[in-house]
């Protein structure tokens, strides 16, 4: 592996817990749940490094579809993107997937799944991570 490729790999390796398992943080001072992790609580400004496992469930806060994709995502276009309000509080941006016949709307209940996100860098390394899919009534 050349140096460029290994640098790209380590950038994504560092983020594996967030990307694959939606691991964020909880503030020990005010109990705010934090995702993406940022080590300083956005609510009280104190140190917040305790890991916290998010449930992966939430609802659509806003949504759109990307037609003019940036390079690395063009083979996937058009694709739906949403901001999801996690049930623990934080907002998170991600693609939607496995959309059935029901139209996605603000308020649609969704859950996290792991999927291919796109290709990164000149070598086109594939990046995997969270997407969200609608929770079906019978599930």
């Amino acid at each position, binding site marked *: 592996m050349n140096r460029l490729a290994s640098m790209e790999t380590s950038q994504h390796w560092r983020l594996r817990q967030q990307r694959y398992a939606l691991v964020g943080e909880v503030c020990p001072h005010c109990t705010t749940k934090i995702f993406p992790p940022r080590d300083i609580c956005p609510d009280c400004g104190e140190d917040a490094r305790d890991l916290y496992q998010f449930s992966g469930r939430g609802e659509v806060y806003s949504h759109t579809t990307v037609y003019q994709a940036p390079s690395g995502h063009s083979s996937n276009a058009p694709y739906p993107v949403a901001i999801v309000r996690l049930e623990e509080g934080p*907002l998170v941006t991600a693609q939607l997937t496995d959309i059935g016949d029901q139209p996605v709307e603000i308020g649609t209940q969704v859950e996290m799944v792991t999927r291919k996100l796109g290709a990164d860098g000149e070598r086109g390394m594939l990046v995997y991570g969270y997407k969200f899919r609608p929770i079906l009534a019978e599930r």
Partner: protein
Amino acid sequence: MMPVGEHWDLSLRHLALDAISAARADSGGLRPQALYVANVLAPALSGQSHLGALLADFTGLRGVEASTIEASGASGGVAVRQAYLALTSGALDVAIVLGVEKITDKASGQVQAALATSTDSEYEAVHGVTPSTQAALLMQRYLYEHGAPKDSMAGFSMTAHQNAVTNPNAMFRKAIRHEQYARAPIISEPLNTFDVAPLGDGAAALVLARAAALPNRHDYPQVVIAGSAVSTSALAVHDRPNPLHLTAASQSAEAAMLQASLSLEDIGLFELHDSFSIFAALSLEAAGFAAPGHGWKLAQNGDISLAGKIPISTFGGSKARGDPGAATGIYQLAEATLQLQGRANENQVPNAAIAMTQCLGGSGATASTHILRRPN
């Protein structure tokens, strides 16, 4: 100011040279001690960084202090702020601030990827998010939360295009009708092509000087910077407590007005950031010209037209003049200066005495606000 558009015959450095030469001639030949360059895309699209020295050398200013200022779409305003700090500190007497972008050499996918670097690369861009996606997500939520109609942003686009008809530097000099807006192709729903400013090559330059350094005689009234401020917020839309409240825009507008000892009623025109129409509504709300959820209504009743209560995008804004990326803030300040000098011709805002300009980086993560005053 260079016309914004596709300058296939001009390179980055030639665009810069033309803009700087025009600004220096306009200033009566003042010689700057420093050059501040606002640029974002040259490293990604032209394979060129280190623009300070490159452009100082190429534009006949070899030897002066020079560097690049990068704050996404707010770069121009932030560069003016840096020059303002250097001048008011007494370290410099004369500075040039240049905004320049060369965009049209590269294909759309590369341009979108370069633009996406202004979003949070680890938590937005990796999911295929670009600035258009951020704007679409904000507009979708805005329409939902405020129960605003689907065509509520049409007035911003129509006003911008109307004002650009008489601007020789504008990319699109044609008025548009409401039916054209309503039928326009979707870019990223609910955004349509008329909600999105077209990117173009551009360059504009300003000469800033301490009052003591000005020549005794000059051709035009000298415009004064009465307020200057920069504020920041989270890069990612999802990292803001209320994504529809542009806190950096609010804070910088408030700081600039406080410094100038002015209130909103004193502002005669507002060159705001309209790279996407939703930002026009959100900026009017952030500055306090409209309550949350009501910004779009100012575009319905003529309030934002040249003769209205708070004219915006008086030369067409980014929507119709064209969006020159990092140079946006410099175009805004140059256009506001022409207004206050009474040199805006058919675009003149009657009796313009005080102007506010504000440019945003990303979806509002950086905001720079300036207040300009015409001396009595």
